[in-house]
């Protein structure tokens, strides 16, 4: 029994780990009498693995048996990996025991597809239903919705889960069909729509009856694999922006392609996952959500890919020197937010502090603004600022910030140098 559980846990955790989402945020739910657990709103990280990723939820598969043969997936039908399946009770017990020891925030349940989507989904719903109703588990639950399952099952899952997600996996449909012949974008967008519909209906219901059940209160999320196919960052970010326009889409995750299936001819031969590109995409994602940027400001047809050497905000600023320098003591919040080196927090600090006195560059430094970058793009309460991007050129600033060697004047050849040997 003991050895068997350990074995299953190893196999099914290994199969689940490539899903990057692990957020436990979006729901605030206090504990109540007779229930176990609460949800914290911001999410809590309980540990960090050696790859630096947060462990918040028990991220696990119900089974890694799968009828599909998607090229990018480690659990595809044609792979010879060890297969296992949890029984519903085993998984429920494991979740509760881990939760009581404060190892985890809750459960992130996903599964390979056995026999057909509905059959799989029924078993998954069973797990979270027993957790919620029998064990009165009040912690966080994130469940994958299986593409192609029925609306009724999505609806039932939504009543127990805090977040549902369907992974889009590949940014364009053409490439998705290439790598996963059994899937298309429609099979992904359908369940997304079901979730969205459920959320809207529940919101309507709750206007009438405040006690009406909540439907996926933490919304939905999705994930794209980056670098397995030939999409440009422009295409990726367009898909992102399209998804964020839908109500209830909380997060789009990017997963740098890790070559799990080396021998497949449809996949690129790479040694290292494209981690820098992944990072730049997340930065661009943040610009879309919190900094008021539009996709075509970050990438466009003439610059279809993100600059890997610098963050997308700096890249934008250097392409648009005409907006700078920004006067820290006068400019609007939105404009201050666009200065490289100033984030949301520091922009707010600036706005609230400048009511008291004019801010100098020393003040900014103390507040934690990255002056190394910001100094080229601002003026503040100093007599003269002659070192902005206007006086230097964007090319110079680029070199200075990316650490390229700036050619200095060679030492005067006619001057004798004195060398003192100790």
């Amino acid at each position, binding site marked *: 029994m*003991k050895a068997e*559980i*350990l074995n299953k*846990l*190893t196999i099914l*955790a*290994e199969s689940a*780990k*490539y899903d990057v989402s692990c957020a436990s945020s979006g729901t605030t739910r*206090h*504990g*109540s*009498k*007779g*229930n*176990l*657990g*609460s949800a*914290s709103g*911001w999410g*809590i*990280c*309980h*540990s*960090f*693995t*050696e*790859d*630096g*990723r*947060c*462990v*918040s939820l*028990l*991220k696990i598969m119900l089974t890694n048996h799968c009828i599909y043969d998607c090229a990018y997936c480690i659990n595809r039908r044609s792979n010879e990996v060890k297969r296992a399946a949890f029984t519903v009770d085993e998984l429920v017990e*494991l979740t509760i*025991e*881990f939760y*009581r*020891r*404060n*190892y985890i925030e809750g459960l992130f349940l996903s599964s390979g597809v056995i026999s057909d989507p509905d059959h799989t989904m029924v078993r998954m719903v069973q797990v979270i239903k027993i957790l919620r109703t029998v064990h009165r588990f009040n912690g966080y639950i994130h469940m994958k919705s299986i593409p192609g399952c029925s609306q009724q099952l999505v609806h039932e899952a939504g009543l127990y889960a805090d977040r549902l997600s369907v992974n889009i996996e590949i940014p364009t449909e053409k490439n998705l069909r290439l790598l996963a012949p059994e899937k298309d974008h429609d099979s992904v967008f359908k369940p997304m729509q079901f979730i969205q519909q459920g959320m809207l209906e529940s919101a309507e219901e709750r206007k009438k009856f405040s006690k009406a059940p909540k439907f996926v209160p933490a919304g939905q999320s999705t994930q794209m694999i980056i670098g397995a196919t030939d999409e440009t960052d422009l295409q990726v970010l367009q898909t992102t922006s399209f998804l964020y326009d839908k109500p209830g889409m909380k997060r789009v995750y990017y997963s*740098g392609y*890790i*070559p799990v299936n080396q021998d497949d001819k449809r996949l690129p031969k790479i040694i*290292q*996952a494209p*981690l820098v590109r992944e990072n730049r995409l997340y930065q661009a994602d943040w610009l879309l959500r919190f900094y008021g940027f539009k996709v075509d400001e970050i990438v466009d047809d003439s610059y279809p890919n993100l600059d890997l050497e610098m963050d997308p905000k700096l890249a934008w600023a250097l392409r648009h020197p005409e907006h700078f320098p920004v006067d820290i003591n006068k400019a609007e919040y939105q404009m201050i937010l666009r200065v490289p080196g100033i984030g949301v927090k520091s922009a707010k*600090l600036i706005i*609230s*502090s400048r*009511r*008291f*006195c004019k*801010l100098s560059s020393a*003040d900014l430094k*103390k*507040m934690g603004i990255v002056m190394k970058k910001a100094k080229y793009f601002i003026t503040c309460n100093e007599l003269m600022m002659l070192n902005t991007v206007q006086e230097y050129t964007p090319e110079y600033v680029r070199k200075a910030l990316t650490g390229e060697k700036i050619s200095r004047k060679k030492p005067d050849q006619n001057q004798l140098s004195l060398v003192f040997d100790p």
Partner: protein
Amino acid sequence: MIIFKYDKSFEGLLTAVFDAYFRKEFPDMLLGLDEPGPLFIETEHIVTTDKEKTNRVWEGLEKKLSSNALNMITHVWLSELEKSDELIFRYIRKTFDNQQNIETNYADDDVLQMQKTAQKVSREKHRLTGFVRFVKTSDDIFLATLTPDHNTLPLIIQHFKDRFRDQQWIIYDLKRNYGYYYNLKEVSEMSLADTNMIKNGQLDESILAGNEKLMQQLWKQYFKSMTIRERINIKLQRQHMPVRYWKFLTEKYSS
């Protein structure tokens, strides 16, 4: 140099503020009752902690500051950093002496310093809500031990009380030698007379519950399996989860 000596309690500090305004004399240095003073002392005042005076100062603060700023004061106090009492003293003085509310003036050194210190404490508080690890004992009590940098325990108790209502638990600060016990009804402060059964942050095996070892083993295995070996980034791991917390994390200590 003007010196105030007080009993190093928060109430004592607020009483010191009261005394200073009453005497129209403000200390250059705050010391504990038995701390030796510097060489040239002009005046030395011994503060006698007084509930009445404490309350008057706190009520005065409540009138001038937002609940956020008041929280910040408690956080800075719990930071237990050196000279944090003098920082709070100066901050309170600035609050009372200015017509305008000063709490968002981050160009002021003390205001900024308060905010930064409070943030440190608040960060640890958030971290601990994740890093607390309970060990189930044979008498069904879930015990967690830690040694936080700051005196953060009082700030996290509410979270655990809310979350684990149907299990008895103890969260214990080994550095400050006190903790909190929840008996299924209420939380009370306690301190262990004898911490011999805890060695290097780990509980003696003889008092563990039956399935505890298995659960620890499962968790460790899960933790190991989650690592994507193609993306190893130890520096990032340590940045999020500093090594000083490791000895209390089930998944990090070796059995």
